[in-house]
C-alpha cells in the first residue's frame, strides 16, 4: 500500500527493476528449457543451480505469489504493482521461478476457504516452493460426473480414515502433499463431499504413473488404503467440499481454454501444408497435388484463423466492457477440435512417416507429430469432455432446457 498513485508506481517500478537487476541470475534471463522447469518440493533437483538461487530470492520477496497477503509470506502487492512486476520481469525475459499447483490452484482456494491456522501452516511453503502439491479429484467411476466420486472418508474420532482411488492425479508420484475430494456422506451427492489435505508419505498412499497411448505421462493412479489423516486437515466445513471443488475447476478450465493444451506436438513440427508439399508434392501451379487433402488442410487453417480472431475479439470486447460469456463458453470445445484436426492432418500429410513410434528410420519431427496426435485425443476429454461442453453451451448460453 506504500505505492499506489501513478508517481508511486513509477517509484515502485524503479525499485523492482533495481532488485531484478541485482537478483535475477544471468541464466534465468534465457528462454526456459523443458528440463530446467522448477516444480519445487522435497524431490526438486535444481538441474541448474541458478534456478535454486532465483527461487529462493523470489520466494523470500513473496514474489512467486505477488498478490498474496504478506502475512502468509506472499508479496502483498496490489493489482497495479503486480502488473508492474510482471512487466519488469518480462522486460528482462526473466523465467518464472516456480511452476506449482499450489500457486495456481490450491493456494487461492485455501486463502478463500481455509482457516487461519491452515493458511499459516501451508501458504508460506507454497510461496517458497518448499511443498509440491497435487490434486486428487477424478476417480475411475467419476470422470465427467466428478460429483459421483466414491473415495470413502470416515470419521474415526481422532482422525479421518480414507479408502479409495483417484486417477489423473498429475505428478502425484512427485508431490509432497495432496488436496483431495472425498465422500463423507453417501446418502446425498454434491452435499456429501469434503475437501481434505494430507501428506503423500502417509502410510497407505501409493501413486503409480499412468502410461498413455502417447507414451509416458505426468498422470498417476493414486490408491488410498486405510490412510489416517489428522482431523485439522479438513478445509472448509464437513460436506461442503463441492463449493471449493467448483471454484478450483474454474481455475483449471480457464487455464486449459487459454491454450494450455497437451498434444500440440511442440517445437520443430511444421504446419500440415508444409508436410503436404514435401510428402505429397505439388502440381505445376504450386498446389498440393492431392486436392482433397489440400481442401481439408485449408478448411482447418481457416478454422484456426477464425479461432485466433475470436480470441482477439473476445479480448477486445472484454476491454470494451461487453459481455463475453458467450464466446468464452465455446472456446474449449473449439480449441479441442482445432488441435485434433491439425494433428490428424499432420499425420495424414506425413504418410508412412507419420506412423513411426521410436528408433531410427523416422525423423524426429515426424515422431513428435505422431506422439502429439495421440496426445491430442485427450483434448476433448480432459478438463470437461466436449460432450459436456456442448451440454453447457446448450443449457447456459442457448437457454435450452432438460426434459421435464
Amino acid at each position: 500500500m506504500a505505492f499506489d498513485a501513478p508517481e508511486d508506481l513509477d517509484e515502485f517500478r524503479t525499485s523492482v527493476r533495481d532488485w531484478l537487476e541485482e537478483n535475477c541470475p544471468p541464466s534465468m534471463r534465457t528462454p526456459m528449457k523443458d528440463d530446467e522447469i522448477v516444480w519445487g518440493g522435497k524431490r526438486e533437483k535444481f538441474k541448474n543451480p541458478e534456478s535454486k538461487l532465483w527461487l529462493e530470492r523470489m520466494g523470500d520477496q513473496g514474489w512467486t505469489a505477488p498478490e498474496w497477503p504478506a502475512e502468509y509470506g506472499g508479496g502483498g502487492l496490489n493489482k497495479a504493482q503486480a502488473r508492474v512486476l510482471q512487466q519488469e520481469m518480462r522486460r528482462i525475459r526473466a523465467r518464472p521461478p516456480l511452476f506449482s499447483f499450489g500457486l495456481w490452484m490450491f493456494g487461492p482456494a485455501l486463502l478463500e476457504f481455509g482457516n487461519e491456522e491452515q493458511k499459516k501452516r501451508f501458504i508460506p511453503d507454497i510461496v517458497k516452493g518448499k511443498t509440491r502439491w497435487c490434486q486428487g479429484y477424478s476417480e475411475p467411476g467419476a470422470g465427467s460426473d466428478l460429483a459421483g466420486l466414491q473415495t470413502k472418508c470416515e470419521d474415526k474420532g481422532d482422525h479421518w480414515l480414507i479408502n479409495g482411488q483417484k486417477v489423473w492425479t498429475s505428478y502425484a508420484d512427485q508431490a509432497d502433499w495432496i488436496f483431495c475430494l472425498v465422500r463423507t456422506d453417501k446418502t446425498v451427492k454434491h452435499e456429501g463431499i469434503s475437501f481434505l489435505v494430507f501428506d503423500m508419505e502417509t502410510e497407505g498412499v501409493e501413486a503409480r504413473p499412468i502410461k498413455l497411448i502417447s507414451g509416458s505421462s505426468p498422470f498417476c493412479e493414486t490408491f488410498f488404503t486405510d490412510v489416517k489423516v489428522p482431523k485439522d486437515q479438513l478445509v472448509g466445513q464437513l460436506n461442503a467440499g463441492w463449493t471449493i471443488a467448483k471454484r478450483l475447476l474454474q481455475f483449471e478450465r480457464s487455464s486449459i481454454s487459454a491454450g494450455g493444451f497437451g498434444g500440440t506436438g511442440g517445437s520443430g513440427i511444421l504446419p500440415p501444408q508444409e508436410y503436404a508439399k514435401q510428402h505429397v508434392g505439388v502440381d505445376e501451379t504450386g498446389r498440393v497435388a492431392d486436392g482433397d487433402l489440400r481442401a481439408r488442410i485449408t478448411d482447418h487453417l481457416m478454422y484456426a484463423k477464425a479461432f485466433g480472431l475470436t480470441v482477439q475479439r473476445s479480448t477486445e470486447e472484454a476491454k470494451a466492457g461487453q459481455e463475453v460469456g458467450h464466446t468464452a463458453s465455446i472456446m474449449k470445445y473449439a480449441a479441442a477440435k482445432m488441435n485434433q484436426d491439425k494433428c490428424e492432418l499432420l499425420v495424414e500429410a506425413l504418410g508412412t512417416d507419420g506412423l513411426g513410434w521410436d528408433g531410427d528410420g523416422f525423423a524426429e519431427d515426424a515422431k513428435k507429430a505422431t506422439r502429439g496426435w495421440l496426445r491430442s485425443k485427450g483434448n476433448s476429454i480432459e478438463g470437461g469432455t466436449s460432450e459436456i461442453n456442448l451440454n453447457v453451451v446448450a443449457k447456459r448460453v442457448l437457454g435450452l432446457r432438460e426434459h421435464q
Partner: protein
Amino acid sequence: MSFVLSEDQQMLRDTAMAFARDEMPVTHLRELRDGGANGVDAEMRGKLAELGFFGVLVPEEHDGVGLGMVAMGQIMEAQGRTIAATPLLQTAVIGASVLILGGSEAQKAEWLPKIASGEVTVAVAVDEGTHHAPLNIATEAERNGQGYTLNGAKRYVTDGHHADVFIIAARTFGEAGQAHGISLFLVPNDATGLSVQALNTVDSHGAAHLSLDDVAVSEDHVVGAVDAGWEVLEPALDRGRIALAAEAFGSAQAAFDMTLEYMQTRKQFGQLIGSFQSLQHRAAKMFTELELTRSCIAAALSGVDENRNDVAELASLAKARASDLIHLVSNETVQFHGGIGMTDAHDSGLYMKRARVQEALLGGASYHRDRYAKLNGF
C-alpha cells in the same frame, strides 16, 4: 483489427437493424415475390437512399458519408437477417468500390453522387460461366476510332434486371484466365446492342443474363487503366465478398434464432424438442460456427478500412466460412422445423433458397478455400 464498433457504427447498426425489422421483414419479400416484382422495389430503394445507405462507402467530397466497410457490413448483416432484396451489394459496395478505386476524377464526380443519392443503381458484370471465375473473361472489347466495341455475354448478373448502368469487365488483351488485359467499361442499360434477359431466381431476388452485340463505348467510359482493370476489379470484388459474407452471416443468425425459438416452444412426445440432447448438441455446434464466423467477418470488414495488406486472404476466409455457415444453418433450420419447414408458408425455405445464392455468388466455399490456399503458398 478492430472488433468493437465505434459509436457511429453502432448507431448505424441499430438503424439498419430496426429498418430491416420494421420496413423489410420477410413478409415484404413474400409480397414482392407474389406480386411478380422479381425483387425490385423502387419505394424501398428511395427509403434506403434517404437513410444514406447507398453512400456509406462514398467519400464526403462526392456527397457520401464515407463511413467505410465496417459500417457497410452492419447494413448488409441487417438486410441478411430478413433476406431482403436491395441493390446495395452491387451498387453501394461493388459498383461504388470500382469507381472509388479506379474511376477518374470526372467519373467519380459524375457517378458517385448519383450512387450515394440512390439515383442510379449499378451492376458490375463479371462472370460468363456458371461458377465464379473472374479471370475467365472472354467478352471482347475491340479498339476502334471513337472508343471500344464490346461483344460477349454475362451470366446471372445480380441486379442486372434493374440496373441503370453496368460496369462490364471485358478483354482488351490476352486470353481468358489472364489478369492482364482485362478492362472495365461503364455501359448504360439502354446502350444499343445490349440486351438484358431478366431471370426468375430461386431466392426471388432476380438477376439477368446480358448479351453484348457490338455495343459501342466511348473512351471516357473506361474505368481504370486499359488492360489493368484487374487491379481495380479484384479489390472491389473482395469488398463485395466481405459484404456478402456479412449478409449471409445475418441470414444465418436470423435462421438460427428462429430455430432456437422453435426448439423452445415445439413439443413432441410431451417434451420440448429443444430438450433432446442430439438437437442440443447440433444447436451448440451451430452456435460455435456462428461465433467463429462472426469474428472473421468483423476482421475482414475492419481490414478493408485499415487498408491492410491481407484483405484478399481475409475476404476469402470470411466468404468461405460464411458460405459453409449459411449452408449448415439453413439446412438444419428446415430439418429442425420438420414438416412445417417444408411448407412455402414458413420462412425456413426462403432462407435456404437465399442461402444457396449467397453461397454461389462471388465464389463459394470451394473457390475461396482454393484461393486461400494459393495465397498461403500451397
